[in-house]
């Protein structure tokens, strides 16, 4: 049984037509697949089928440890969305529901390799000297969450020092507890700075600067 029905499949084919560059969907699962590992793998394979510029690579989190470490993957299911280079765009947990839009947008964005951000944001990002890790906690039923995820991923594309994860809170309840997630989207920058809700770009950039000063 395919996950994507015919109608969605057709729409996705249209959305992914004319990708400006190649995209690798590097997915990590394991032999005894975790909750949603099976579906995440299947989703990656089904999406890859819809464009000849997308390839799916499936790795085992245990057996292919070196590969996981190389890409900084620390939990599964995980997808690294990689374009001409690895921009640090990650999805932890299945990008279903509203997050499917974030996933498609990430594919389009890494294929283009050009961040959709304002000049003011790009200037700030260009001046970053330290690594930045952005985690955006979401649920698949949250209509406001993709905006936060997409913005984080754009920042990752804009700077080699920024990596950005979508983290599906229901699949990683221990992380939801650790980061005190009681509402989504909740963005955590470098473990210290938090943003509640889908904030405007300038607000997220200000928080990013705050995290860098800490």
């Amino acid at each position, binding site marked *: 049984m395919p996950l994507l029905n015919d109608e969605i499949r057709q729409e996705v084919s249209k959305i992914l037509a004319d990708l400006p560059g190649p995209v690798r969907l590097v997915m990590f699962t394991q032999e005894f697949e975790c909750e949603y590992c099976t579906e995440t793998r299947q989703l990656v394979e089904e999406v890859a089928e819809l464009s000849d510029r997308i390839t799916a690579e499936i790795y085992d989190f245990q057996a292919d440890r070196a590969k996981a470490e190389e890409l900084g993957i620390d939990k599964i299911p995980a997808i690294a969305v990689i374009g001409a280079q690895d921009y640090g765009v990650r999805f932890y947990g299945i990008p279903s529901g509203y997050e499917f839009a974030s996933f498609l947008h990430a594919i389009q964005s890494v294929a283009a390799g050009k961040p959709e951000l304002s000049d003011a944001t790009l200037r700030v990002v260009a001046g970053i000297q330290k690594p930045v890790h952005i985690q955006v906690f979401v649920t698949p039923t949250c209509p406001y969450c993709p*905006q936060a995820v997409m913005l984080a991923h754009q920042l990752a594309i804009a700077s080699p020092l920024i990596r950005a994860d979508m983290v599906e809170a*229901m699949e990683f309840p221990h992380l939801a507890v650790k980061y005190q997630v009681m509402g989504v989207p909740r963005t955590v920058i470098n473990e210290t700075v938090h943003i509640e809700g889908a904030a*405007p770009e300038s607000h997220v950039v200000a928080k990013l600067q705050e995290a860098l000063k800490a």
Partner: protein
Amino acid sequence: MLDFKLAPSQPEARPSDEVYDLIILGGGPAGLTAAIYAGRARIHTLVVVGPLPGGQPANTDMVENFPGFPEGIDGPDLARRFVAQAERFGVHLVHDTVTGVDLSVRPFVVRTDMATYRAHTLIIAMGAVPRRLGVPGEDRFFGRGVSACATCDGFFYRDKRVVVVGGGDSAVTEALYLTRFAREVILVHRRDQLRATQIHQERAFANPKMRFVWNSAVEEILGDKTVTGVRVRNLKTGETSVIEADGVFIYIGMEPQTELFRGQLELDEHGYIVTDRRQRTSVPGVYAAGDIQDPLYRQLVVAAGTGAVAAMEVEKYLEMYPQNNQEQQ
């Protein structure tokens, strides 16, 4: 059980130095219908799409009262179609947040989070946002125990106790949604009966996880690091009491997003932009459509209708003042 929703395409940033014939503030049903009409009239148009492209339908499970979809249509799908249809007719869309306007100069100035734009005419269609209680503790805990989105945050209250504030359709349907996760859902309402549609009321009263606290208003959200409960006042007896809860969901209706326009446009006593039958506001060349100017109906199809009227009026206005329209192009 897994579903995969498609979203409206992500609008790209536009250069801000050109003067548009029309800027539409808001990318919901009213703004996008206006955009479709403006695009077809070949009016040089920019749409500033807010935080939820497609507007409130993007946050609605199933829309059953929009004509042309006898089986109903998935809200996000409808939102995506609105955006696609507007784009088809050549209008520019940007994803940004409007932070201010200056209606005292011509062309009008629209400031957003990331840019400044100018236009000869405006259609304001920024809709309505969930009303807040305005009580102590609410701001501090918003996103951390206080929520206005049960579908977003319900999962975090598995086996917990939550309070829902309100008595209308949203309050009751979202309370019912929360019973899937929570151990107990306590609905606090100012009156002694619900305003919600009868079918929702029947479902709520039949649900064993639901409890009702009548004639009561929440006065404070309590807690130190996390929410521990709410203090409520009984409006009949004046007595206050504490209801223990791990989370609070607020559904007390919507309010128009008009703070930016206060002092520049005539607003009614509830903050809605005052418009006439042609969607004209108190400033010539500035029109308003949708929920931001509709204290009565706030329906998708009405919002779309007023958006169409506003765009047709903009077309007439630009024809009447061609000098405005052409000198900058």
